[in-house]
């Protein structure tokens, strides 16, 4: 069975009939006629035989990967951020910020390419911009550079602002499980003011694996 998490920038694929692990393919390189058996994500409806809601996939994936009964799991994608909070093994809260969380991950990646940044080499700034969305946050970077900041320093403050905003959106937990491509960004994960447990990019795929058999009642 072919499972797919059709993200805005990247598609994550898993063929459960194969022993190989999941694949990551840039969304723009996906063949036009590509179809999955079960899909989730923004482009899932037109590319899958059946679809699973992204929050549902995130919650189910979290349940498979996290053994604790109480946890908060935040997924930071290219286009949006979403979280689920479990208490005593039951879903207790959730959120999906597609509007004010717009394009945070996409903008972080765009900045790295534009300014040729290696986020592994960028020190964590002591303060950050007040950022509510990737698009609006760009103005803060341009203003800071115009005022004399280095591009690297301004981009770092932007990333810190994004991380702090995502942290508050998830309810400011003491411990936060993180999902999505930004797990691989050391600057981003270091900017959270709490313990971070990165789970990687395939949490939603794990949720799809759980979909046929798991019930949350």
């Amino acid at each position: 069975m072919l499972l797919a998490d059709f993200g805005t920038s990247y598609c994550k694929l898993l063929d459960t009939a194969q022993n190989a692990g999941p694949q990551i393919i840039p969304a723009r390189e996906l063949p036009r006629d590509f179809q999955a058996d079960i899909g989730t994500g923004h482009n899932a409806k037109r590319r899958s035989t059946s679809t699973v809601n992204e929050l549902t996939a995130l919650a189910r994936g979290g349940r498979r990967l996290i053994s604790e009964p109480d946890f908060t799991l935040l997924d930071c994608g290219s286009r949006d951020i979403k979280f689920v909070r479990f208490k005593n093994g039951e879903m207790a809260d959730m959120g999906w910020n597609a509007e004010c969380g717009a394009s945070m991950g996409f903008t972080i990646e765009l900045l790295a390419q534009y300014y040729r940044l290696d986020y592994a080499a960028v020190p964590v700034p002591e303060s950050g911009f007040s950022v509510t969305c990737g698009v609006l946050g760009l103005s803060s970077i341009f203003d800071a550079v115009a005022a004399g900041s280095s591009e690297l320093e301004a981009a770092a403050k932007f990333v810190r602002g994004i991380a702090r905003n995502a942290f508050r959106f998830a309810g400011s937990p003491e411990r936060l499980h993180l999902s999505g491509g930004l797990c691989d960004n050391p600057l981003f994960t270091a900017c959270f003011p709490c313990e971070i447990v990165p789970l990687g990019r395939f949490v939603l795929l794990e949720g799809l694996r759980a979909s046929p058999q798991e019930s949350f009642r």
Partner: protein
Amino acid sequence: MNGIPMNSSQAMHNKIGIVGVPPLEIIRQLNEAQAIIVDLDEPQLFLPIDQSDQYLPRVYCAILRTVLLNALNLRLERIYVDVGPGKCDCALHVAAVLKDILSIPVVATRNTDTQSFGFPVCQSSLPLIEKMRRITKGVQSCQPWPQLPSCPPTAGFWGVPPRDFSILAPFPDSTHIYGWTRCMENKTPADLELESYCNPAVPTVFFAQSFCAKTALAKHLAARHPKALWVDCDVSAGSSARAKIEAFLELSGVLGGGRAAG
């Protein structure tokens, strides 16, 4: 007595706009006079809501922006705007705006009716969108509700009728309605106790329009409810709001084999 009484000849075949739930006495007069009642809270015209920007801030309750859009573009003889505890302070201010910009009478009423008409539609097994349609339509009548069989609830929808009914689509037919919509059906829109009631035994979505004062009550009640989701929407229901509701119902066990409770 609220507002200005009207006689039969005044209202005969005239279009009368209403905002909120005007007092029963007003509705009775309009029914007796066979007036055509137009609910200005609901979208009546295919016009961009931005046209209301001339008179109201863009960041404002979408229902009241719709009211203004309707009032500006429909040929109405008179408008009754309920203000105060049965509606909201914003309606009071919009009534003042309408009085200023329209040449027709705009009558502010304060509905404090206490006679309960019951809420059989809220507890019925009709599809949620149909429940909502009947309740909003029912405001235009002074008659009691026909009895409907009730069903055990598996989910709850608390709040006001949304401007965009599409967010109601994912709910099962066994969803009960709570909040101000229940007050509407009961014809007691100022009954805060009834409005504040919710059922802790069923997963409940607490809804309010963005920028509405009722968002405070929705958020507060959701925080106290053991299994709740608080959602607000502006002009239309975005994909994230719909997806949140869908996921909440799935993860709460309501969809895909939920069980009755309460």
